């Protein structure tokens, strides 16, 4: 027994020594093997990732087919744009980024399988991917088992943190609380009606929102309703809204249901310029399907709007449209997906290595000043510090910025007092 324990203790040391010895010839070869200032592959890649002297491979893992393709298409486009721009600037540690795109097909086991394929067969240095929480939860054990690095773009319910994931979207408290505070102050709102699709993200978000409304804002939740994903009939809940007359309708309805909900709200004569509605699930992408005339006047609470007026965004939006067409719109998640490759590049350069362990350790504190949303920094908990903004939907399908937090909001995936 003790022998074996000793072996266990000794072997990492011995391995390190051996590796050190192996590295000596590599270092002496360095001047010949390297191009320009690019550091030698053996130095920046000690774990056998797909890194050559000129190229580094990353994976893109989203649904290009199936129900989720509606939402994930924008993320794929943003990640490809970021990769192209990084390559045009000379790549990462002197290496061009090559990407392998896999299709999760809106099916969670497929996501896990493809993630494994990317890590084990293709040895990608990082994966930009996943969208729904369900797909992330399916991929997470794979990332942890094979020690991969995932850049996850969607705003989500929180209650998760992993060494192997960087969450580039906002977690629930970060997204919701500032918006609720604003609407309570601005509109003097006291009563809230919650409507959501029936799955983990809306339920967790509403739980947090309810605690905040009741404990902090001292308001009242007059209704909390959930409808199955894909539900297309909202007349009953609209009647309940008419009956309870809430100051604010707070919604996290997703997907095709959104379109039905706003169309029926309008048809029922609820005028969003008079009835305050705060959504955390409608971005410019969704408005494309809903139609600006059906949602004009509603408030959305997230961290990015296409209409943001800052120098970064003013170069980002035209670049995106140039690559993907004049008519494409850019929503919150699309922007967060764009951050993924950039944050990875910056972290790799900070760590001076493609090794996943080193990237995970170097991530906290990495800041991206070129973010279209303004400025972001990675927190110790692998989420991003970011501002929260409220926008009002306009007829043309864009948001008009109404409010933004003065400072970056700290990500808090395990919020105390909200669980």
């Amino acid at each position, binding site marked *: 027994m003790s022998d074996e324990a000793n072996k266990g203790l000794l072997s990492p040391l011995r391995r390190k020594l051996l590796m050190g010895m192996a590295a000596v010839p590599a270092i002496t070869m360095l001047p010949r093997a390297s191009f320009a200032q690019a550091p030698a592959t053996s130095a920046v890649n000690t774990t056998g990732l797909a890194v050559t002297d000129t190229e580094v491979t990353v994976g893109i893992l989203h649904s290009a087919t199936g129900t989720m393709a*509606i939402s994930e298409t924008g993320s794929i486009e943003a990640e490809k744009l970021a990769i192209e721009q990084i390559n045009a600037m000379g790549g990462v540690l002197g290496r061009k980024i090559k990407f392998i795109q896999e299709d999760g097909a809106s099916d969670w086991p497929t996501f896990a399988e493809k993630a494994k394929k990317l890590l084990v067969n293709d040895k990608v240095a990082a994966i930009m991917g996943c969208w729904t929480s369900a797909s992330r939860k399916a991929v997470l054990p794979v990332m942890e088992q094979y020690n991969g690095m995932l850049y996850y773009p969607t705003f989500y319910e929180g209650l998760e943190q992993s060494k192997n994931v960087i969450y580039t979207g906002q977690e629930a408290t970060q997204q919701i609380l500032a918006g609720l505070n604003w609407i309570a102050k601005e509109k003097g709102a006291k009563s809230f009606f919650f409507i959501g699709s029936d799955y983990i993200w809306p339920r967790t978000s509403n739980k947090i929102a309810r605690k905040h409304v009741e404990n902090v804002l001292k308001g009242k939740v007059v209704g909390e309703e*959930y409808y199955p994903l894909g539900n*297309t009939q909202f*007349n009953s809940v609209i*009647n309940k809204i008419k009956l309870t007359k809430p100051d604010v309708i707070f919604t996290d309805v997703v997907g*095709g249901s959104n*379109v*039905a909900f706003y169309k029926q709200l309008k048809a029922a004569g609820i005028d969003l310029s008079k009835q305050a509605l705060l959504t955390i699930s409608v971005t410019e992408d969704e408005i494309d399907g809903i139609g600006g005339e059906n949602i004009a006047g509603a408030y959305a609470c997230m961290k990015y709007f296409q209409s943001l007026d800052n120098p970064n965004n003013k170069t980002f939006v035209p670049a995106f449209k140039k690559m993907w067409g004049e008519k494409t719109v850019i929503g919150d998640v699309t922007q967060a997906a764009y951050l993924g490759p950039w944050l990875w590049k910056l972290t790799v350069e900070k760590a001076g290595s493609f090794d996943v362990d080193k990237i995970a350790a170097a991530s906290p504190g990495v800041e991206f000043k070129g973010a279209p949303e303004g400025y972001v920094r990675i927190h110790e908990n692998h989420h991003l510090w970011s501002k929260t903004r409220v926008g009002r939907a306009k007829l043309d399908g864009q948001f008009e910025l109404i409010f933004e937090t003065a400072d970056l909001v700290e990500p808090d995936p395990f919020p105390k007092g909200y669980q």
Partner: protein
Amino acid sequence: MFGDYSLGDLGSIFVMQGFAGLILFSVYVLMALGLAIIFGQMGVINMAHGEFMILGAYVTWMTSSFFQSYLPSLFSGYFFLAMILAFVASGALGMLVEWVLIRHLYRRPLDTLLATWGLSLILQQAYRSVFGAREVGVELPQWMLGSLHVSDSIEVPINGVFVMCLTVLITVGVAYVMYKSRWGRQVRAVVQNRIMAGAVGINTEKVDRYTYGLGCGIAGVAGSAFTMIGSTGPTSGQLYIVDTFLVVVFGGAASLLGTIASAFSISQTQSTLEFFMSGSMAKVLTLLAVVGILMLRPQGLFALKVRK
């Protein structure tokens, strides 16, 4: 839960809620009619029903874009033309599908389930490739938006009234065609006994093709109408398929009256329950009730008496 509200409030809410139930009823009938013909009359389990509906929705979207760009002055009336085009497009695709795929499977009705399911996947991906993965927004003329102001608290959504009128019109049309016209008699004859119908000189292949086409065409019109209340995307058809089958099976497969009765009972149960509990729970209870009744009456509400 009613303690806090005035009598006037309650009265108007009951009116509104009744109306919500009626709208749901019309929506159910409209989406189930096409399937009632295809599944009910022909016995083809058409899993691609939702995709035929969405074809109608996309045709509506294209018509609306066309009118916006080229004939903005006539935009307010484009919807009627769009519905006709939707009928033609879905019907034509339906007839093509019948000729290529379905006619080989009449003797193996269970295989139609698999074949049409495959077809639905193919169509979804085709829409995605042609129209893009994102949803498209169908712009409606101004007069179809908003609501009729009856009293301060009672407002009737115009699109709901529109769907109701359309449903009545199409139901009457279908009933007339199926039960009064010569062609309808042929359809029913083929359904009851294909061989004998052929023997007395009915061109059964032609009848089959047109019946399938009619069912798909009506699905197209339904899809077109649903652009007013729902989304238009490659997979939006999936949102309707479960409810559609539920209505048709619960009503009794071969009966038009059954379809209407079943749509009525399901929609009223659903919307009443929705008012007293959350939407998800209402759905669960409705489904449980349907399952319970189907266990007692496996043939559905209205079963055709057939000599076996």
